[in-house]
């Protein structure tokens, strides 16, 4: 991952056919890497001994702070989304906001904290 500030374009709304949303502005993200958990299922024998286990991907999440780049950017809302690549192995991913705070400001900057969940059905 290159060192620098991650800058993304957020979109709002989308229809079911082409999934094109409306751009709502540019945002600077302060985030760590996405959390990529898994769910494990244990298989045991008749004496309850461990025999095998299976893992499956759980929902990936991402949380952090988004800075509204300038006055033209709208405050983020639930279900706003962006596409970006966090890990080369995963490629581009679509992240949808599931929780977002009210904007807070200091001088000429406004920020919001957010949590996103990866949309497993789409990448663009």
């Amino acid at each position, binding site marked *: 991952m*290159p*060192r*620098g*500030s*991650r*800058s*993304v*374009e957020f979109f709002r709304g989308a229809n079911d056919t082409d999934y094109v949303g409306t751009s709502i*502005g*540019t945002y*600077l993200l*302060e985030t760590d890497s996405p959390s990529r958990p898994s769910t494990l299922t244990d298989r045991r024998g008749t004496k309850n001994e461990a025999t095998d286990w299976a893992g499956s991907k759980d929902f990936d999440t991402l949380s*952090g*702070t988004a*800075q*509204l*780049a*300038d006055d*033209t*950017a709208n405050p983020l809302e639930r279900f706003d989304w962006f*596409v*970006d*690549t966090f890990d080369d192995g995963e490629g*581009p991913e679509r992240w949808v906001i599931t929780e977002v*705070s*009210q*904007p*807070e*400001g*200091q*001088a*000429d*900057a406004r*920020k*919001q*904290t957010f949590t996103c969940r990866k949309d497993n059905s789409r990448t663009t």
Partner: protein
Amino acid sequence: MFIDFDAIPQFRAAVERVNLVRDVAFSGLPETIAGIEVLPLTFRHWQWLNTIASPFLGGRELEARTLAGDIAAFFWTIAPKRNPGALSTDARQLAYKKQFLLTIGRLKLDTAINGVREYLSEAFMDAPGGRGQGDHTSYFSMGAAVVHRLCSAYGGLTPFTALDLPLKQGFQLLKLIEREEMAKLGKKPMQFNPTDGLKGRLAAKIHRFPDCSEAKIAVIQRN
């Protein structure tokens, strides 16, 4: 898209300026406004300026009718040899006040106003963010809230000594307290840098004009 803002000279210069102001805040050096030596703004000064509804802190509008008096009151609050406990008949204090205010009176109005604004902008540059909304019901002063937080974190401070901390020191310490408290919850706080606005405007410009000079210097990776 990744943007290396440090590669943009105007951003780098702004960051260096902020770092300098933050470091100097702990050096004990005096400050100046338009060449006149003054004290660093403390929580006590801030409380006092709020009490007199100084227009420089948003207490009321700046008006031509009261401007000279407001400038004098502001400067006198942060005058280096002002003794707030002196009696109104204290001859030495009265002589100092007269001489100090004569110096202030020689300043051009716009020089004084711009100087005060710059001084305040630096003093509040690490202040916490706010939502600018809500019911505005207040049960204690901002100074009391800040002092309570600082005293809770630093055993050696009392409300009296905390009031005499320069805002530039106190706000940096508050950021560290918040960072530590949030880390205990496994979270990161939302904090602000004075350069955030510039950073945002540069990012918006780079998105809008991908071939602009800043983009050529600073974009590390596009999607």
